[in-house]
């Protein structure tokens, strides 16, 4: 079965970033390293053949205890109106260096989604205009969707500021 042209293009243009690709029920995922992630998105968005103009979602996976190369993966879902097709990019982020470049300058909708990933997983997005917490309270400490965060918290639900 022929692979989708996006996979071949990314393999050819970013050989040092490409890790592997997966397909599940017709949807493809490309696992890449995080270093040139911005260039990959710029290519996918601006190349005449693809024109991935819509960023559907940004989310994150914590691979703690799951044999993955790195601990985290930031997952980007893209959609192209031109070809009516979808692609998923997983950017591997190591535990020691939880930094990745922001894609806000490509898609404005990335702003709040990156803030959510920062808030809940502690991934830092370089170049984000206002990287602050979006869901948890401003004085919250820690990133609660990491798999090593205790489910019942560290006393947040007993001790919090009361508005007077």
């Amino acid at each position: 079965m022929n692979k989708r042209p996006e996979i071949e293009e990314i393999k050819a243009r970013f050989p040092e970033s490409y890790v592997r690709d997966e397909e599940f029920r017709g949807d493809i995922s490309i696992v890449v390293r995080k270093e040139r992630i911005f260039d990959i998105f710029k290519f996918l968005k601006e190349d005449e053949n693809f024109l991935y103009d819509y960023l559907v979602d940004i989310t994150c996976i914590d691979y703690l205890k799951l044999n993955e190369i790195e601990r985290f993966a930031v997952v980007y879902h893209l959609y192209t109106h031109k070809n009516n097709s979808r692609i998923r990019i997983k950017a591997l982020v190591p535990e020691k260096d939880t930094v990745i470049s922001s894609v806000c300058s490509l898609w404005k909708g990335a702003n709040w989604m990156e803030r959510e990933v920062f808030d809940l997983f502690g991934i830092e997005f370089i170049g984000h205009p206002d990287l602050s917490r979006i869901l948890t309270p401003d004085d919250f400490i820690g990133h609660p969707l990491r798999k090593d965060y205790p489910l019942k918290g560290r006393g947040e639900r007993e001790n919090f500021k009361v508005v007077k």
Partner: protein
Amino acid sequence: MGIENLLKSNILVTTVDAVVNWGRKYSLWPMPMGTACCAIELMSTLASRYDMGRFGAERLSFSPRQADLMIVAGRVSIKMMPVVIRIWEEIPEPKWCIAMGACASSGGVFDTYTLVQGIDQFIPVDVYIPGCPPRPEGVLDALVKIQKLVEQDSIKKRK
């Protein structure tokens, strides 16, 4: 023509408490603190089929300053709880509170870092309604229980 004859046929003697509480209990103005799915059941209770208006509590007060009953319907997170406390304090005395559903009463299934495990840790709750979500009959039952509490209220007790 003595005033005694008029007294016999036109005047009832009672206490201020009885009259005030009688009026108050049939005209409760609930403040809906609807944060989740319980609020949908609360809306259903107010609508035509169950009709909370039959008990005199159909006028929801979206300003806490005119309310006298707060119905906390739904889960309250640690980010929301300061707001709930503030709204509770803005309600003038006398006031009553209903914790509607498992989440408001105890945290329910959400035994997690972000959810307050029962609003009674921070504000005084008069009536708890069990259920996830409770049926509208449960809300009406709680309202009748609040009315019984209103009956026991007294001007003397308050400062």
